[in-house]
């Protein structure tokens, strides 16, 4: 068996790489695929917190590389989903503890046992990014509808194109606020795609539940009510080759809004 190795990157910090990794990983595992998440953000690890696995980590990526333990020993099984494993980053080291070849080797090894190997990339384009991308053959670029994030995403896409081993890269637009888009206060999904000229993998709405889920250590895809969770589930399906329509983010939640929209559409019809 040879699994797919996907790096989740963005260039800019704080756009939701780690949240996206945790949610896509959990969503893929929920669908029955075996998934391993690798946190490559050595020294600033967060992925374990989002999955609620912080208290289970004994060995880390750096321990594996420095041969203090076997790879299997360092994999932490998720407490909810047995298909999902985490390979945590060391908190007490820095990015120079890992080299590109070493990470590549680990990815090759994990590829044999898992359907998906997801790499959570650190922010920036320095060694941490280079390490994370080295092992991957596919990339997911996360961005938000902000000029700065889009600029950084553009830079990242350029770097990914320059790498021969990256066969495919797709875009996830995070934290979209449909109401702000409607009032022209935020760039729309189309604007972003027109700027970046990149295939769209999914659009994730801004959702307050993401904040609670981060604090609780439970990814949003486990919460049915969460719209962001639903969007991540759809992204996971698209990664697995299913054709899923994009969620209509303009859909108002309350009844009054629905009535308003209905009359609006009548008005347009006339």
């Amino acid at each position: 068996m040879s699994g797919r190795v996907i790096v989740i990157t963005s260039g800019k910090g704080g756009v939701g790489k780690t949240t996206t990794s945790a949610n896509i990983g959990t969503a893929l595992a929920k669908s029955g695929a075996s998934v391993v998440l690798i946190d490559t953000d050595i020294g600033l690890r967060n992925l374990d917190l989002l999955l609620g696995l912080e208290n289970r980590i004994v060995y880390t990526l750096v321990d594996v590389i420095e041969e203090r333990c076997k790879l299997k020993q360092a994999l932490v099984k998720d407490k909810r989903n047995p298909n999902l494993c985490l390979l945590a980053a060391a908190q007490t080291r820095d990015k120079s503890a890992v080299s590109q070849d070493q990470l590549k080797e680990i990815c090759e090894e994990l590829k044999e046992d898992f359907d998906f190997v997801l790499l959570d990339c650190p922010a920036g384009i320095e060694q941490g990014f280079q390490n994370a991308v080295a092992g991957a053959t596919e990339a997911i670029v996360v961005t938000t509808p902000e000029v700065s994030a889009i600029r950084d995403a553009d830079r990242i896409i350029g770097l990914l194109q320059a790498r021969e081993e990256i066969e495919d890269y797709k875009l996830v637009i995070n934290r979209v606020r449909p109401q702000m888009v409607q009032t022209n206060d935020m760039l729309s999904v189309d604007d972003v795609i027109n700027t970046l000229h990149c295939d769209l993998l999914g659009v994730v709405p801004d959702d307050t539940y993401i904040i609670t889920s981060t604090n609780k250590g439970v990814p949003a895809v486990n919460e049915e009510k969460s719209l962001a969770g639903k969007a991540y589930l759809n992204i996971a399906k698209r990664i697995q080759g299913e054709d899923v329509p994009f969620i209509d983010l303009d859909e108002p939640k309350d009844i009054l809004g629905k009535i308003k929209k209905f009359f609006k559409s009548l008005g347009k019809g006339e």
Partner: protein
Amino acid sequence: MNQNFSEDAYIIDLSYATSASDIVFELSSVIDNERAKNQNIALKLGKVDLNQSQLLSIRSLINSINSTVTFLETNSAQTELAAINLGIVVSSVKTTEKTEDTTNLAEPTLVPSYEYVKLEDHIDENEDSKDDESDVVEDTDESQEDAAESEDTQSEVSDEESALKEEKNNSPIISNDEADEIIVAKSEDIQNALDNIYSTEVKLESILDGEVSNEDGVISAAVVKKAVMNEAKYTEEDFEIDHFSTSYVKQTLRSGQIVNYDGNVVIIGDCHPGSEVIASGDITVWGILSGIAHAGVKGNERAKVRALKMNAIQLRIAKHYARKPDGMNTIFPERTSTFTPEEARVVDNEIVIFKIND
């Protein structure tokens, strides 16, 4: 049926239970019963073998409803020994005549005042020398010679060690329940038995937390106990730790910072989550311990971890490993001025956290 059942004791008969998890299951249903609250509890256990840490868990479960275990009846020699070590009045069904002396060891909050004085006398003697301590245990049950085993090294006991020893009380155990990926030498059976206890422990912790925040005095009064324990027998490993050199770290450890020292470490400050303290001897944190602490890293199982507030994400002592229970991570860190000094050490191959009272 037995003179040691005091008149107002609430008898819980669990003699039909076949495993530790049965007992905990039954007990957790008893907790909901109003009548069991604020009572002296007489526990009747059957043939189940309980070790000290399991018994501690059961006792803390009962403590959570403001009740106290005053008497225990068991068929198992192991349980009996564990109970004696915890200072619970015990009667083995086979040898009921031997229970007379054990009244001396009853817990101070429950026995009549004259016996309370007696107990204090014992404690005072113990502070002087460890040999008295073993005598006390011998009195309680002569059939348990292991418990009363006297050692040559005992004369070398330090005052500090012996003062610490009496004033321990259990608090919920953090144990390693599903560490599939982690190599820790563990017996499967203990593991399974404790898994169940463990789930109730978490519940208990939340009960405790809630009550403390409501009314500070209540729980601490119920929890404060003095039990004579032979656990603190002074061994060569203890001697080794007492003579390690000690390093003082006078700063707060932040995420990603490591203190690694061959000897004892004292941190004057907090240890934030993500920090690590590794020492071949004891670790003492004069502050809140929220990171990882690994004491006795070279294999000394007598090493201990102490903190003014124990909030560690993981505790490791020698080869043993315990982690913070899931679901205990509150969104907002608990801000409180009341510290509950605690000490973690290895009891029966499990890391157990004890309260250091006063």
